[in-house]
């Protein structure tokens, strides 16, 4: 994957979009703020989110000033990822960033969404809408690297139409309290979604993920793999629901959440749920919470690797199943480096 061609920078809610390459604008690709859209495109906004699933989504709906819109027309395949950086610089600020990605029929796009903030206390209530039309393909990577004092209550709402494919990956690293709700709707027959997450808590962080896999149409597939580590006194919560509508025959839906506890004071909770209204389905859910496997540690130690180094290798390897599958290959080394830095900082918590 090439370097990003277009960068959207949002600082304290103010949006700047870099110039589109000529081949993209010629093909009708639109990357702009909502106020610059024509009426026809404007009418299509918000169809995925609707009024929003909860009060935070409704707040975003009411208060987002400059929604960023990425539109890829039918049949257009973007040859490089789009980078959206959402930074909150000013302490005391609350922001309501909105990103709408619409991939047309048979079109392809990749979006990297990087959330950051400064040192101070900030509140961010972002909402992202992903709309993948029939036969389209979208790769979406969200890297949450907010400052240590930041609070996030975010929503990610996706709709995947007939034969379309969504690869959505979440990397949760920063924030004091960071919550992200993901609602993914397999709306068209034969649609497929892979949902991945890697999250790593340290110190007093709380990381909270809530996922919904809605299967509304027949022959749809969703595959969720969330992996997390908690060190220090940090906490993580995973709550997930697979819901299979009675129309959704031939559904394959999987949900796996694995957590490693790196200190006695850390805490991880995992609550998977299934709600199935038809018989013709393959569904499974699995969740685990536990310390580093003592068998694995012994094996590495028996080769002469000290326990802290062994645990670093094991936890790094634990995340690798997710990291190597991220939808943006160019981001993989950076994510690995972030996890390694986290492991450096939590190494004292191990054992």
């Amino acid at each position, binding site marked *: 994957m090439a370097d990003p061609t277009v960068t959207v920078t949002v600082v304290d809610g103010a949006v700047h979009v870099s110039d589109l390459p000529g081949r993209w604008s010629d093909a009708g690709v639109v990357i702009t703020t909502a106020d610059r859209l024509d009426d026809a495109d404007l009418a299509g906004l918000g169809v995925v989110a609707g009024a929003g699933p909860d009060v935070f989504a409704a707040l975003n709906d009411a208060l987002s000033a400059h929604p960023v819109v990425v539109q890829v027309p039918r049949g257009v395949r973007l040859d490089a990822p789009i980078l959206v950086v959402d930074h909150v610089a000013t302490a005391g600020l609350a922001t309501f960033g909105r990103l709408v990605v619409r991939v047309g029929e048979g079109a392809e796009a990749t979006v990297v969404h990087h959330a950051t903030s400064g040192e101070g206390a900030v509140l961010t209530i972002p909402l992202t809408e992903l709309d993948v039309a029939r036969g389209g393909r979208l790769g979406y990577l969200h890297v949450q690297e907010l400052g240590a004092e930041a609070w996030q209550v975010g929503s990610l709402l996706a709709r995947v139409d007939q034969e379309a494919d969504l690869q959505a990956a979440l990397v949760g690293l920063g924030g004091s309290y960071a919550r992200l709700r993901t609602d993914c709707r397999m709306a068209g027959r034969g649609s497929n979604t892979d949902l991945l997450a890697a999250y790593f808590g340290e110190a007093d962080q709380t990381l909270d993920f809530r996922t919904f896999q809605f299967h509304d149409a027949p022959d749809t597939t969703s595959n969720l793999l969330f992996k997390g580590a908690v060190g220090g006194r940090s906490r993580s919560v995973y709550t997930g629901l697979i819901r299979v509508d009675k129309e959704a025959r031939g559904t394959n839906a999987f949900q796996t959440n694995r957590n490693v506890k790196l200190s006695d004071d850390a805490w991880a909770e995992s609550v998977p749920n299934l709600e199935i209204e038809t018989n013709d389905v393959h569904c499974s859910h699995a969740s685990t919470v536990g310390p580093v496997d003592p068998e694995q540690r012994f*094996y590495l*130690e*028996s*080769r*002469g*690797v*000290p326990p802290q*180094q062994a645990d670093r290798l*094991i936890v790094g*390897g634990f995340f690798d199943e997710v990291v190597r599958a991220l939808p943006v290959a160019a981001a993989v080394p950076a994510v690995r480096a972030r996890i390694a830095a986290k492991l450096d900082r939590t190494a004292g918590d191990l054992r």
Partner: protein
Amino acid sequence: MTVLEIKGLRAGVDGKEILQGIDLTVRSGEVHAVMGPNGSGKSTLSHVIMGRPGYEVTGGSVTLDGVDLLALDTWERAQAGLFLALQYPTEVPGVSVESLLAAAFQAGGRDVAEAPALVGAEAARIGFADRFLGRDLNVDLSGGEKKRNETLQLGVLAPKIAILDELDSGLDVDALRDCSRRVEEATSETGLGVLAITHYTRLLRELKVDQVHILVKGQIRHTGGPELADELEDQGYAAYLDPEPEPEAPAADPFADPFGPGPFA
């Protein structure tokens, strides 16, 4: 010359004593086989020497060239020159044998830059496919590939003493030949001392054994030369087991009919 000296070793799990005083000395270049029936304590012996968690040492000593191994952490024992090839090598997703051995080199103060070439050379020697080197440790490997992988690590780390815990279980004859031959070569090339724990004599076809020890109920009952392995192959362990206690005569039934069942029973 290196000496692994086990003296009066007693150890157990959850208060139950499994090893009841083991004496065994392994020197550089020697191959000792510890054989015995299931449940005799063979695997416990290998795990206790390497310091696997869950075992409690209740007496005796284990020294490597005079260094008290039981006082060291597992990784320090490995760095002192001890190696354990596991019967069931553990799967470690996301960690490759290359990165494991690089970490071991680093901890031991060896040049990490030398590791990849050594790993490649050992892989070729043991017949371990290159494509496995960057993959997850022991994940989706066949029994034979797992044991080749263990032997590859032995070759790269070049320990002074290797404990092989049933290296001959769960693998095909080709892998068994390659692995046992590689260990045999190490005994002459680097003076490796070997403590091979096994059920079967097939391991000892390529690996030339100096002494065979028969372990029964946590004690070494008998020690002999290579011919002892052949004898066991023919006759089994029966001669070395405790005689089965005579079954007690069933107690008389106080309610039995004293006249017997009678013609109408």
